[in-house]
């Protein structure tokens, strides 16, 4: 493990707006430098993306950037990040994606000229590698197109590069619906970790070459899929909580490879990563209910350096176009947090604690990313010898936290949920000591038709 100790070991230092290693943007926003800024995300309404619809699509993005930044300027936001999370054809055909990148960058420059607004762009290409089944992870047209969009958007001036990568997901969805912790660990800590290393060893040099920031990855397709399934009562929350803790091990790899933040919004594992790395993180919570529901609407803000709405369609609401309305909401959220900070460290801590306490006792998925839990899980991760052991250690720590809190009465958990704590612990007890043995066992058990073992540096079993 590259990180063997924590950058933030005192939970009280894990707080919104401040990160030990802040990031300065071209227009002078200092992310993690004491202030929390809004990060606006947006997407298209019901429309097919193809050449003939591109003029209409361009108009959507032009409207989004000009109207939302105008509102940001009117509300005197000290700065704002826009995230362009592409839709699959925009990465598959980088010329579509680049069209939009340019529109957004022009809009940002225009707002800077017109209002002096400090804005910056995060570009998040899609990981389309899974369009082929089994996915080809290390070559092919999806891989090439994705790198091309990273390269060209960085060159054009997108200051942050991010992705929600999918390495390891071939097995993870099934692991989730089957409640199979062993397969979760294999997907995230064996397959996921290997793919992350390969992927970020490509993204970091691109960022460095163009003088922009390799900002980080998220285990969205893993942890948030679990969260949505738990929200719908399809899988236990206690299980989704353990999955979340383990995702931190996978997402950490981007930073081990040289990413520097701000981590991407949908990574609810980010507080754990902030404790380990000290890099600023974006988070989403209550103001992202337009995109998905979550049980940590307030708590998610407690450690955030950027505050995001995850995604909203460009549709008309009574107040205006939805992205503009969400820009306003994010700005008011941030104003309140920043006001508390400018009243002094005690006020900021009080604000943070209110954010934490208002959610932490109601759902284990919230509790697990509280500053205290985040530091504890982060410590378990950095104390481990390798990513496999770190996965197990983070899972055990998550179970311990849930058990302790529910025994103390500080976490609500029914018997149907708590029964899973024992079940998961038994599964962890049965795991072998070394990754090597684990891989050997798993390669016999999992469906190896679903992924390409070579792309994960995994041994191909010879079937006799």
């Amino acid at each position, binding site marked *: 493990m590259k990180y063997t100790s924590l950058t933030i070991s005192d939970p009280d230092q894990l707080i919104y707006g401040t990160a030990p290693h802040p990031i300065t943007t071209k227009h002078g926003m200092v992310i993690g430098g004491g202030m929390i800024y809004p990060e606006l995300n947006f997407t*298209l309404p*019901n429309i*097919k993306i193809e050449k003939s619809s591109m003029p209409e699509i361009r108009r959507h993005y032009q409207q989004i950037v000009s109207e939302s930044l105008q509102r940001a300027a009117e509300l005197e936001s000290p700065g704002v990040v826009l995230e362009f999370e592409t839709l*699959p054809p925009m990465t598959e055909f980088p010329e579509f994606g680049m069209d939009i990148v340019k529109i957004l960058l022009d809009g940002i420059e225009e707002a800077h000229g017109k209002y002096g607004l400090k804005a910056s762009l995060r570009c998040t290409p899609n990981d389309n590698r*899974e369009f082929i089944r089994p996915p080809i992870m290390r070559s092919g047209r999806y891989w090439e197109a994705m790198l091309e969009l990273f390269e060209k958007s960085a060159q054009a001036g997108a200051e942050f590069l991010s992705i929600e990568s999918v390495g390891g997901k071939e097995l993870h969805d099934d692991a*989730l619906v089957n*409640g199979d912790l062993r397969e979760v660990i294999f997907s995230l800590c064996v397959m996921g970790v290997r793919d992350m290393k390969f992927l970020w060893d490509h993204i970091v040099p691109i960022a460095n070459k163009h003088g922009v920031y390799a900002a980080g990855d998220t285990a969205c397709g893993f942890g948030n899929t679990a969260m949505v399934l738990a929200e719908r009562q399809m*899988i236990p929350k206690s299980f989704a909580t353990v999955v979340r803790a383990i995702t931190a091990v996978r997402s950490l790899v981007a930073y081990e490879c040289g990413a520097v933040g701000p981590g991407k919004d949908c990574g609810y594992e980010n507080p754990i990563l902030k404790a380990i790395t000290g890099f600023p993180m974006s988070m989403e919570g209550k103001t992202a209910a337009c995109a998905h529901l979550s049980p940590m609407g307030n708590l998610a803000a407690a450690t955030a350096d950027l505050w995001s709405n995850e995604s909203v*369609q460009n549709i008309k609401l009574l107040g205006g176009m939805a992205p503009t309305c969400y820009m306003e909401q994010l700005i008011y959220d941030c104003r309140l947090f920043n006001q508390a900070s400018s009243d002094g460290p005690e006020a900021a801590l009080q604000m943070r604690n209110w954010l934490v306490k208002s959610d932490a006792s109601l759902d284990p998925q919230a509790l697990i990313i509280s500053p205290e839990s985040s530091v504890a899980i982060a410590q378990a991760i950095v104390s481990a010898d390798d990513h496999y052991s770190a996965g197990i250690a983070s899972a055990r720590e998550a179970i311990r936290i849930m058990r302790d809190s529910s025994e103390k009465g500080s976490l609500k958990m029914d018997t149907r949920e708590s029964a899973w704590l024992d079940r998961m612990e038994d599964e962890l007890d049965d795991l072998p000591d070394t990754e090597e043995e684990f891989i050997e066992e798993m390669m016999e058990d999992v469906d190896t038709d679903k992924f390409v073992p070579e792309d994960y540096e995994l041994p191909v079993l010879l079937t006799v």
Partner: protein
Amino acid sequence: MSNIEDLRTAVISGKRKDAKVLTTALLEQGIAPERLLEDALIPAMTVVGDKFKRNEVFVPEMLVSARAMKESMKLIEPKLIEAGIKPKYKAIIGTVEGDLHDIGKNLVATMWKGAGFDVIDLGVNVTPSAFVDAIETHEPDIVGLSALLTTTMPAMRETVAAVKATGKNFKIVIGGAPVTQTYADEVGADGYSPDAASAVDLAKSVLAA
């Protein structure tokens, strides 16, 4: 002597090995394969499905039962074919072109299988022409389409139009987070359901109509 009741209980509690042993024994005792299906497996999955609807069990627990049923079906199916008994309904399901979301679709497929449907799952990113080909080959009673992205809803519309143009006689039902009853009406689908738990009732009701 084993009885049908034991098989039903084994499937409800997800005991795969028991389900296998009991099925073998019951078949050897001369009980008709369709009785095992109709009186043990389908009722068992209905019990489990109802528990799931009432939030009494989680999906992993439901899938354990589904796997126990599958174990039993492996033994029953050849006998059914031998006896010339076809499943009551044949279904085709898939996620539309451009869309890779399949967790919801897979659950619907599982529920349909639990209700005794013969389900052919075409997977994800399925083009309209692949749906059409499958329909020509399998002649289903019902076709299910799933879409999770607003940007793939147009593909759903195109798929509905393409499969209808085959002129074959089957019902179309659609689902997925952004899909609504209004949208189903608009694109000319026969039905919509918001979740897997109600997808069986939906299928039965459109097929009965």
